[in-house]
């Protein structure tokens, strides 16, 4: 057992847990933030993606204790004062989801990409999102949603 603090979506949580537990299991089972999903447990599918200190991170292979003291953003932390992040809105507008189980991870990877590259081209989107799986095959619409969000963010939407 180890005591540590996690800063998730601007809120600090004091925890006393088995230090080997994955960040994903702590987010989901202890903090009830179930937007981040389990898909593979080996960092291959991207459904568990969160942003830690600006970096898209696979929370299923990240020990929770290693994220102590760092700034963690999950899908639940994107909406601000009832206003969706432009990429969340773009996913709705581009109908970029079917079962949507991958959507949280897709959006978190996409947000991390847009934060470091405000205007990615298709090749850059494909390259940086290759580690996120959508088994329903909604890939073309996800690419379109990222481009759409890039456009709307240019206008200073965020």
């Amino acid at each position, binding site marked *: 057992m180890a005591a540590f603090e996690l800063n998730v979506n601007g809120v600090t949580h004091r925890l006393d847990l088995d230090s080997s537990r994955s960040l994903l299991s702590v987010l989901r089972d202890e903090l009830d933030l179930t937007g981040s999903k389990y*898909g593979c447990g080996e960092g291959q599918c991207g459904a568990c993606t969160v942003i830690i200190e600006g970096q898209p991170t696979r929370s299923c292979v990240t020990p929770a204790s290693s994220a102590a003291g760092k700034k963690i953003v999950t899908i639940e932390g994107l909406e601000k004062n009832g206003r969706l992040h432009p990429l*969340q809105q773009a996913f709705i507008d581009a109908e970029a989801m*079917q079962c949507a189980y991958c959507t949280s991870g897709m*959006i978190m990877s996409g947000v991390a990409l847009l934060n470091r590259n405000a205007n990615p081209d298709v090749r850059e989107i494909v390259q940086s999102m290759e580690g996120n*799986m959508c088994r329903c095959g909604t890939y073309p619409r996800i690419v379109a949603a990222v481009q759409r969000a890039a456009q709307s963010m240019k206008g200073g939407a965020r």
Partner: protein
Amino acid sequence: MTNQLDSDAAIELERYELAESPAYLFEVDRREFFKLFGCGVLVGLALKRGAAQESGGGRRGGRNSMPQDISAWLHIGEDGGITVFTGKVELGQDIRTSLTQAVAEELSAPISSIKLVMGDTDLTPFDIGTFGSRTTPGMAPQLHRAAAAAREMLLDLAAAQMSLDRPQLTVTDGKIVDKSGKKSVSFGALTKGQKLVKTIPAEITVTPAREWKTAGKPVAKVNARELVTGKHRYPSDVKRPGMLYGKVLRAPAFGASLGSVDTSGAERVKGATVVRDGDFVGVAGITEQAASRGLSEIKAEWKTTPQISQSELFQHFTRKTDASGERSSRFTQGSVKDQMSSAEIKLEASYTVAYIAHAPLEPRAAVAEWASDKLTVWTGTQRPFGVRGELAQAFRIPEERVRVIVPDTGSGYGGKHTGECAIEAARLAKASGKPVRVVWTREEEFTWAYFRPAGVINVSSATQKDGRITAWEFHNFNSGGSAIRTPYDIANQIIEFHPADSPLRQGSYRGLAASANHFARESHMDEIARRAGIDPLELRLKNLKDARLRAVFEAGAQKFGWGKQKRSQGRGFGMGGGTEKGSYTATFAEVEVDRSTGSVKILRAVTAFECGAVVNPDHLKDQVEGALIMGIGGALFESIDFGGGKILNPRFSRYRVPRFSDVPVMETVLLDRKDLPSVGAGETPIVGMAPAVANALFDAAGIRVRSLPLAPNGIKDAGK
């Protein structure tokens, strides 16, 4: 002409959609169990009756007819909110939206005023399951009828209340208004939340597709906001007060039986409850980690038996046919033998398809809770009522004491028909006296779920020099009977499905065996065209009368620019198409082969698709393209590797599925036939991809690959 195949659908429904023996037999011994509840065969028969009666009353307790009372399907609240009840479930097909459109259309009500309750066995009418592309041709018309009957009832009520004649009234925006525009009354004010107790009249008329205002339009996904914010609770997200986390002991290999087991170590793990019941051994823990730790402390000895390996599989299928005890299904017409012996062009080829996994991104998950002898299970399944039956059987309680609720689920593709995870959670919950959640790991999902059947398909054909096919013989071993019949007009045919015993657990899949049968058939059509020196499109059209199939081939060819493409080194073009479950598809692919590296890349895929009157063009396009992208995996690289009773590639790092970079440029042409009933579209578009790619691969590199996947390690390994 004899026709011993009742229909392709009948074979599939019996064999791969539903037939499942119970996952676990608890507490009573096997003999007693069968005496009490009947064996799997009896279950199959009960379900077969259910197949004819697809939705409606329970299949037990004599409620055999579909409820015809409006209130079974639809309720209007005092606030005017419309609640719709359907046993179908949402797994990404966007039927929550399309069925909402059906009700909105007939009631002229805003989309936002309608909420669907789906897949809840206590609240919704019985439904056989969400599979076989049945929602659009079956459930949508039923909801159209129920909503139309409600509309007529509301008009009657309004006429009485407003003292006006019915012709003076019209329905708009959730209200009844008089045509002068002076008076109106809302649905909620009319019904005051009371049940709509009225039988849906047999002769009720629904709005024809040509007059649709809400149906037929690209209405946005109704619950999109919950999905992009992470708020929607999938089955694996359900949390109950005091809930424990469950893990189940798995055998080291298929066919292994449990010998001795020592659970004393596990029982010493803090926060873990151990359950042993027959071959079932599981642990419930206060955290998932406690459950896992408990599981790892269990010492079990297993007795294994020899199992067929992948390398022996295809020989096994063709050698040991009918070992499953089922007779083959055979269709014959004319005399194949006579034509073969005198054929100008005679071809014989054998095609194979591998086992592949559905790999839904959300693995099987269930939360079970017992309260005063009633069991409630939240789980991701395509058959909520079927799983209710499985639970009732497993725990020997009446179905009335089991409630299954299916929250919108992280996909299925035919892979979530069964309830083993629900039974596991319920068994652990029963033992621990607390709610228990079981979520399968990816490895469990890859190993203990079921697969799309592998198979061998032997084809021989006789063709005249002018391209007229005169005889066709087609034998499918194990893979299944969906779309086994050829849509081409061939006078002499033998078509036969040969059941075999499968070393792996197998079941439904998107399109079932239609993908395998289309791969073999459409590859063979290409082979005939090459041998006869006739353009592959021309050969197909020459042998094809079906106007709807011709239409998609022609529309796809036009969009693709078939016959007008510039040729270049290493690039080739191919097509594949057909019909299944009432819809029609043709896919045209451009493929690039790099002979130095062996890599195969699909550059462009054009598909023409027709499924009657289009209900939601944007979501339809999404389904078609999703099916095609899923089809890329089965076409190029997906394959389950197994040996010694184990799955050897049970994780995404070893089992490759399509990713962003695999997606070609895609163009989709939807043929909207407002004069024809709408049919389902989630499955059939998958069938054209594999043959189109195989044929394009031959065009590009001169290599005919007759096995799926075509190029798991690039084309160099594919043989010549």
